[in-house]
């Protein structure tokens, strides 16, 4: 048990920031992100210590749990994941210099809102690739799609995000 603890402790240290960030960018508050992240690691730990478990890639497994947990969260809340324009009061008026500055200086709140307005199929891969530096091949394995498809999706996702931020 001590050895398992130590191993999972290392996995935890490696992924806690990534999983939290992944969740935080998809939900509305820090508290919700903490709730969901807690559940993710709890389920990860339960699977890890289960002798019957055959998880090979713990990181991918945790991300998968996190994706499902976020979906469950929005399902429980009875709302769609996509944030409407009305839910984005922090986005500045269009065409103002402050908004340009916000984007160019990577205002976290604005970018976060932008990501939340992206199509669900683009959100995860943009976060994984550009924030977590996950290679396209790994993302392809994670979502079960060809690497070429992931490249196309990344390109389209970035364009959509840029449009969203410029429209805002």
């Amino acid at each position, binding site marked *: 048990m001590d050895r398992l*603890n130590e191993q*999972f*402790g290392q996995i*935890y*240290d490696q992924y*806690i*920031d990534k999983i*939290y*960030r992944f969740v*935080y*960018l998809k939900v509305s508050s*820090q*508290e919700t*992100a*903490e*709730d969901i*992240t*807690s*559940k993710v*690691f*709890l389920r990860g*730990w339960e699977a890890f*210590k289960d002798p019957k478990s055959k998880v090979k890639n713990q990181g991918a497994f945790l991300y998968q749990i996190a994706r499902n947990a976020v979906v469950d969260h929005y399902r429980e809340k009875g709302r769609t994941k996509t944030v409407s324009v009305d839910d984005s009061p922090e986005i500045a008026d*269009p*065409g*103002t210099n402050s*908004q*340009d500055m916000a*984007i*160019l*200086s*990577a205002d*976290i709140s604005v*970018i*976060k809102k932008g990501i939340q307005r992206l199509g669900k199929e683009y959100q995860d891969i*943009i976060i994984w690739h*550009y*924030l977590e530096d996950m290679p396209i091949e790994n993302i392809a394995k994670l979502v079960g799609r060809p690497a070429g498809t992931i490249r196309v999706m990344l390109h389209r996702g*970035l364009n959509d*995000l*840029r449009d969203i*931020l*410029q429209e805002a």
Partner: protein
Amino acid sequence: MAKITQEQLIESLKQLKDIKPRQEWASLLRSQILADKKVEEAIVRQPTKLAGIMNTFSSVFSPRKLAYSFAAFLFLVVGLFSFSRYAVPGDVLFPAKKAVEQSQATLTGQTAINQDVETLNSRINDLIQVASEGKTNNLPSAIDEIKTNASALTKNLKSNATNDPQTIRSIASSLKILADVPGTDLSENQDVKDLYQTVVESQIADLQKETLTDDQKNTLAQAEDLYSQGKYADALVLLMGK
């Protein structure tokens, strides 16, 4: 607005790496998970300090728990005060009985003297109960209560320039009953004696103002004589039988 280039956008996205969980929360979650806590709720979310206090408060003082606690408390208090009316001096519940009497007297708006008279009557009843039931352990407490009450009543009577004759007669009756309680002669007790003296003095003063028959004048003279000898209990018995 300026057009965002792909490089600028990617750079902006990379800056989202600054998003990190609270260190305190992350450390606590780690230790809780590795401690193999069974209760999922225990690790779900570590509240802020204020939220933690509020959660603790609400779990301990939830509305339902408060309601049950209040009902239990009310039941206990009502039960306590109900049983206390059977208590006599020296019993554990006797202070509760006194508290009830005091609150009842306050609620009915009685004067201080009338309250004292009522209390004296109650204590005399207690003494009768203690004596008749042979509760020797309670006897000293019952006598002490009467002494205390007699002393307070005497002070109240003396501080009043004029006392209601009806009240004086009521006290006289009480003292006569007290004198008749078997095995508890309190007529020589100083506190009780002072009360006798005050009552007799007041009754003599009242009679002196009235037009009396020869027999009454004779009784009054005898009472005055007993009073002057300090035999207040005897004088009272005489006056009560006039």
